[in-house]
């Protein structure tokens, strides 16, 4: 009879309280530092502090999701930096609109009788 091993794990909340440098974003997303810098220059990826050079900027942990999506899209669609920045900008817009729609639906009464 095999015994299932359950591992208890540390959990890190990816929210505004966690900050990380661009190098950590590169490590976690697999996207090269130079391509992440390009996303910062295009203002697709926004640091929490405005410092030069971009390599010393710090990013909210929510940026991990964006950087990982960038890495997937870059790899799966073979996008160049410009195409990637535009795609991410449009995807962000879609996500904002979806969140707005979700919020409006929550506020809309459900009683039909």
């Amino acid at each position, binding site marked *: 009879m095999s015994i299932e091993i359950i*591992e208890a794990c540390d*959990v890190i909340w990816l929210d505004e309280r966690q900050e990380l440098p661009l190098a950590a974003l590169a490590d976690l997303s697999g996207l090269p530092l130079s391509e992440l810098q390009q996303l910062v220059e295009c203002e697709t990826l926004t640091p929490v502090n405005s410092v030069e050079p971009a390599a010393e900027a710090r990013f909210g942990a929510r940026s*991990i*999701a964006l950087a990982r999506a960038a890495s*997937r*899209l870059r790899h799966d669609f073979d996008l160049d930096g410009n195409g990637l920045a535009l795609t991410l900008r449009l995807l962000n817009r879609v996500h904002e609109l979806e969140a707005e729609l979700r*919020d409006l639906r*929550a506020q809309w009464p459900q009683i039909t009788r």
Partner: protein
Amino acid sequence: MKYKDYYQTLGVARDASAADIKKAYRKLAHKYHPDVSKLADAKEKFQEIGEAYETLKDATKRAAYDELGSNYHAGQDFRPPPDWGRTHGDAHAAFDDMDLSDLFASLSGRRHGSRAHGGARDAPFPIPGQDFEVPAEITLEQAAHGTEFEVHLTVPEPGAEGYLRRVPRTFKARIAKGASEGQRLRLPGKGGKGLGGGRDGDLYLIIHLLPHPLFRASGHDLYIDLPLAPWEAALGATVEVPTLHGAVHLKVRPGTRSGQKLRLAKRGLPHPHEGSGDLYAVVQLVLPAELSAHERALLQQLADGSSFDPRAHFKAEAA
């Protein structure tokens, strides 16, 4: 090992050119890529498409795949031909409990590896482990009070022969109170094993709040419909309203309108660190499904005696 028909997955002939394979992949990727598709099965479909393309786009891997033979159906149990292991990997390897995708991922490590029998485990450069993203569906009550969430994964790990093999793993994550829709949690190092000194992959949990029969979440705020009888709205009333932390009494002022949002401060979902969202009771005027004779008489009396015109503004606008 189960056979996967990569050509069928991409919808191309076995003699398709590299350009045709790329074209077919792109067309399917546009439709099923989980970052852009809203189809329910997009993630699973794209995983199959990506796996097929990773093998067929690489001439060496494609040749190795073709040498497996073409007389199998997708999902059929099969073994690579006897010489296949000698040519492309380890002649003595047991392929029985392998996944075809892991076999071809292992081949990458072997091609770049410095040891003849090293395989994926001994990749000469660091290869980070695979990250996993898993939706974590929890109830509003669990989000409000915190909960434990169990994740069951099969993670690719290098076996004794150097080939990647799927290993079942179970993780238990403590989700502290305060999660809202879309919140992401990272479990470092709980993804696939890194190779050649690469870091282990991570596991990401994406919180999804399950629908609740009474409450609807908007960020950390909650909304509930508050049905009121017309006379309660007109005259005012004290009504019981459920919250995630027990019922409270809400004083409804006289003259409350339908659709009005009555705010119950800090009765929404807690924020992760401090404070809470609010609960909004959205007023809905409702009537009895059937009026008794007495109710009808009372309402008729009101209709006859009232000079209130709810559509007075129609006339003002039309004038």
